[in-house]
């Protein structure tokens, strides 16, 4: 009689999602953490308990640092292009001048998002091909053949070539999110600014940017966590090479686990990736103060 009644219907509604989350997200997460304390291979029937040894190895591993720097490069460049540049692009597409061709342009920018990343990566191996690639042929055509390098085979350019492909693919998606946000800005704000005699650039910084702040936050979160997890692009384009010059944390984790059969160490790297993305997400939530709109 006194026990607080748990409402049955709402509980039933959330149960399936809790079940799935628990089974496919939280359980593997805990198991991964558990595996981090062992050393084992997929062939061996037993796991050897090593405590924090793998974590110590992690701290001494130079490749981890190189991979992390690549992830940071990925994040910084992605935030610049996919958040800042995409916002500019969205503003331009929503401008009155482009009203008539904007729908067509939107489709064009969105098209790469719909293609599978594996297909795009294979496509770009042809673009970057040093002998018959589109990029080098184009550079030669306009007389810049001294700029033509084997993009994916050069240790300094490999990671940037990979990042560039990512930008090409993802910018349309983020632009689309911004377009939706811009369309929701009340028109009277712009009209008032027009009456006050504000120019387009002034309107962009004083109306558009503050009004899409929430979307901007979501987009930064998407790009930064995406950059920490990035795997397909470097794995297919370069396999992390030459050397470790374009290796990211996820590629390293895969190589350790399935290439070199160090499942325990791979679990440690997975834990590191999880901690890093969680930290970034927390920082961003704190800094932007989402949810406290007014």
């Amino acid at each position, binding site marked *: 009689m006194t026990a607080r009644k748990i409402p049955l219907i709402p509980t039933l509604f959330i149960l399936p999602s809790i079940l799935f989350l628990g089974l496919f997200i939280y359980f593997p997460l805990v198991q991964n953490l558990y595996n981090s304390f062992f050393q084992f291979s997929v062939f061996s029937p037993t796991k050897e308990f090593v405590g924090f040894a793998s974590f110590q190895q992690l701290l001494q591993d130079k490749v981890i640092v190189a991979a992390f720097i690549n992830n940071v490069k990925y994040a910084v460049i992605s935030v610049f292009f996919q958040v800042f540049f995409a916002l500019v692009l969205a503003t331009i597409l929503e401008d009155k001048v482009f009203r008539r061709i904007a729908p067509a342009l939107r489709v064009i920018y969105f098209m790469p998002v719909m293609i599978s990343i594996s297909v795009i990566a294979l496509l770009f191996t042809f673009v970057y091909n040093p002998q018959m690639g589109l990029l080098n042929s184009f550079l030669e055509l306009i007389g810049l053949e001294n700029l033509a390098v084997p993009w994916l085979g050069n240790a300094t350019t490999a990671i940037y070539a990979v990042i560039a492909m990512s930008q090409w693919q993802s910018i349309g998606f983020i632009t689309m999110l911004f377009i939706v946000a811009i369309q929701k800005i009340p028109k009277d704000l712009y009209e008032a600014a027009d009456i006050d005699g504000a120019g387009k650039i002034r309107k962009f910084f004083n109306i558009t940017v503050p009004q899409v702040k929430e979307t901007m936050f979501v987009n930064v979160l998407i790009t930064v966590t995406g950059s920490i997890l990035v795997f397909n692009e470097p794995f297919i384009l370069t396999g992390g090479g*030459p050397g470790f010059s374009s290796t990211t944390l996820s590629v390293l984790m895969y190589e350790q686990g399935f*290439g070199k059969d160090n499942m325990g160490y791979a679990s440690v790297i997975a834990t590191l990736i999880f901690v890093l993305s969680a930290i970034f997400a927390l920082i961003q939530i704190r800094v932007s103060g989402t949810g406290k709109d007014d």
Partner: protein
Amino acid sequence: MKKMLLFSIFLLLLSSVLSACNSSNTTTASNEEGKVVIDFFHRWPNEPRKSFYDEKIKEYMEANPDVHINVNSVLNDSYKEKIKVLVSSNDLPDIFSSWSYSFAENLVSSEKIMPLNDVLSEDTEWSSSIIESQYEGFKFNEETYGVPFTVDGKAFFYNKAIFEENNIAVPKTYDEFIAALDSLKQAGFEQPLVEGLTDTWAISHYLGTIFKRVVDPAVLEKDYKAETGEFTDPGYIKGLEIFKQLTGYMGDVSTAMDHEAARNMFAAGEVPVLYMQFAEIKMVQEAGKVDFGFFDFPAVEDGKGDPTALTGAPEGWMVSKTAPKETIDFLKFLTSAETAAEFTKTDGQLNAVKGAVTSDNVNATSQEAYELVTNATSTAPWFDNAVNINIADVFMRGGQELATGQSTPEDIMKTVQQEAKKLNK
């Protein structure tokens, strides 16, 4: 009442979810009307081998109506991953293809592979029809765990026409080889030698042979074992320097392409020299019209190693411990002289069965290669099969870094020594 109904619906949903999670295939051995089922797994879903094996399976099932063979295949790299999963999940196929040396050793360490000594000694007529030396890569602790089938080796292939035009003789020593590459460079070949360095295994093939030439065999034997490896011999640094020198002839593009692209360049006559496997001879012939010959990796002056050791390791078949006894009969069928002769005729790859490679089914170049393989003083396994993968990886990535100038031989050896120490235990 209503709540009861809701609750039962919920239970129904839940049970379906749970059973979906649980419905892994527990009953694989489908009873093909009481037939014995053999699960056969190989790594050639590509032609011509896929059809070849499909054909052979059909032939075998017609001759043995009480046996049914389930076949499955995935390509090279996926095969390596899939077999690992199958081993760890107790779902190992009855008979499957395997590489020799460390790959085989890993599989054997799962204790799920059938030891074959008894089977081999029971039927010596069959077991002795396979070249004795090729069993080596499947022997661990005096016990044989696999039957070798294909054999392979690696050598420098050269474009005969280009060599003649520039009056270059086939080099006998490493110094002559470098001189030959230099004169080819002067003759206008920007890259007289080529390799697809994005394929790290191609680097390991180079390094394996170079180490064979410059390092004392006794030192190699000690270092290649995970328990005793140190890698402190100065020969390794010299070996890496040799590799670095060779990458200097490969041009900028090598670090950005794969081995297949390199082979196509050779087949098109754009590049005069390529380090290539004998298994690729037929592919080059089909891709281009160049007239080519080959020479073994030349001896290195002051090299303490074996100047004529050939690099190359066989691939073969393994049987799982739980396989039905009919599997052995199928294994004999797969490695019979008739199957082998037909296989080499279809595919071009050489095989380890005596008398199954003749002028009837291979061309002159392949036959010459076959002689070299079967008469080699010693054969060295592929480097990435010979040493622990953690060591091999440092060398392979290091090889890329040497080619792009990011690292030095000394630095690479330092990392190798650290890795070796970790494995010592």
